[in-house]
Structures are given as structure tokens and as C-alpha cells.
């Protein structure tokens, strides 16, 4: 018997980790991973809520999220490759052509 808030907090922690990763990681790919981390955190709370409300729609939602995540991954990695081609680096701090 696990109180629902536990799950929610866990998901929250994952989400927070994702945000932190986005903020502190330099490598674009890792940053992208942090985004995935955030999505997973969200998924967890979806499932948890689904259990709480006894509504399967939550789980379906998770399913859609995964699909979206997959699509994003495809596009994102493609973009990363494009950037790497033009800039020869994966460090975000060096991807700052556009500014001010």
C-alpha cells in the first residue's frame, strides 16, 4: 500500500532532475536526455493518477506521450546532427551565433 503522493513526488523529482539537467549539462545530447527524463516523470504521474481515478485514459495518455517522445527523438537527433555538421561541436555554450 503506497500513498499516491509518493509516486507523485517521485515523478516530481524526476521532472526536477530533468530541468536541472537542461540547466547544467553542456552536451546537447545529454540535454535532450534530460528532456526525456522530464517526460518520464510526467508519465509516472499520469499512471499514478490513472490508478487513483481508476481511469485508463491516463495510461493511454502515457502511450501517446511515448509516441510523441519517439517522434521528438527522431527529429531532435536529426537537428543535432545538422547542427554538428555546421558547427562541429555539441557544446551548447558554443552554439550562440544568434544573440542580442
Amino acid at each position, binding site marked *: *500500500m*503506497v*500513498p*499516491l*503522493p509518493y*509516486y*507523485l*513526488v*517521485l515523478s*516530481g523529482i*524526476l*521532472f*526536477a*532532475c530533468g*530541468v536541472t539537467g537542461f*540547466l*547544467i*549539462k*553542456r*552536451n546537447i*545530447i*545529454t540535454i*535532450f*536526455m*534530460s528532456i*526525456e*527524463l522530464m517526460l*518520464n516523470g510526467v*508519465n*509516472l504521474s499520469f*499512471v*499514478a493518477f*490513472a*490508478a487513483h481515478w*481508476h*481511469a*485508463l*485514459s491516463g*495510461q*493511454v495518455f502515457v*502511450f*501517446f506521450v*511515448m*509516441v*510523441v*517522445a*519517439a*517522434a*521528438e*527523438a*527522431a*527529429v531532435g*537527433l536529426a*537537428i543535432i*546532427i545538422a547542427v554538428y555538421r555546421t558547427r562541429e561541436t555539441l*557544446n*551548447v*555554450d*558554443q552554439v*550562440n551565433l544568434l544573440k542580442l
Partner: protein
Amino acid sequence: MLHLALFSIFGAICVAGAVNLLIQRHPINSALSLIAVLASLAVEYLLLGAEFVAAVQVIVYAGAIMVLFVFTIMLLNAGEEERTRGSRVAIIFGIPGMLVGSIVVAWVLLRYSGTGSVPVGALPGPPITIAQLLFHDFLLPFEVTSVLILIAIMGAVVLASREETPPPAERGHI
């Protein structure tokens, strides 16, 4: 009781993996720790009785997406990330912001009553019922995802394809 134990164990692994993702400096390690997170999350789903989701989690995420990641990392043979200090803002505003935000969220979530606790397999998500929803109530979103994926494919092709189109033609005066 066992339930709580399992939750805590795998929850711990999740958090550990997530943290590890942050502290690892080589993308590969981060990717691997992310996989750990995903796997243990699948277990959490099982605990919540979402077998289908759990399965999909393992197959799609761990199976497909992460492979993609690792593949890209290899392709661009990304090395150790150097600790450039490009952004003060992220540290000065971002981190505190994150902390404040997460604290508030955590406070809300914890204080969020109206929850009993969740028994193991409280809501069995067998494929049948899922399918019911997916192909009936959520038919339209399901179909639309195909568009999404189509776009993703096109995008990948356009952006990542290496075929050389000649550089833009300069227009002369007219």
C-alpha cells in the same frame, strides 16, 4: 508492505539514475543511466498495474529511443563535455528557480489530499481495455499520431540527409 518496499527500491534506482545522468560527464554514461531510470520506471508502472504501459516503456523507450540516442552519440562520437561556463543566468536564476518550483510542487503534491493509497495492480491495464480506448474513444488522436510520425520522418530525412544540393543561386540585378 512488499509493495512499498519495491516502490522504494526502484524509486531509489530511478532517482539515483537521474542524478547519475546529471553528474556523468560522458554522454554514453548519461545515456546508460537514463536507461536504468527507464527500466526501473517500467517496474513502477507494473506496481501501478499498468502492464501494457510498462511493456511499451521497455520496448519503445529502452528499445527504440535510447538506441537512437546511443547511435547518435556514436555517430558524432561525442566525447567528454568540457565544463565551459557559458551561462551565469542558468546558475543564478535557473537553479534557484528550479529549486523553488520543485519545492512548491512537492509541497502541493504532498499536501494533496483526497488520495487513499494505491494497492498493487489497482487498475489492471490489460491490452483489451487499452485497445478499447485506443481504437474507439481515442481513435482520432491515434490516427493523428500517424501524421506526427510522418512529419518526424520527413524532418529526419530533410535535416539529416547528406545529399548535396548546390548552394543558393545569387540573383542578378533586374
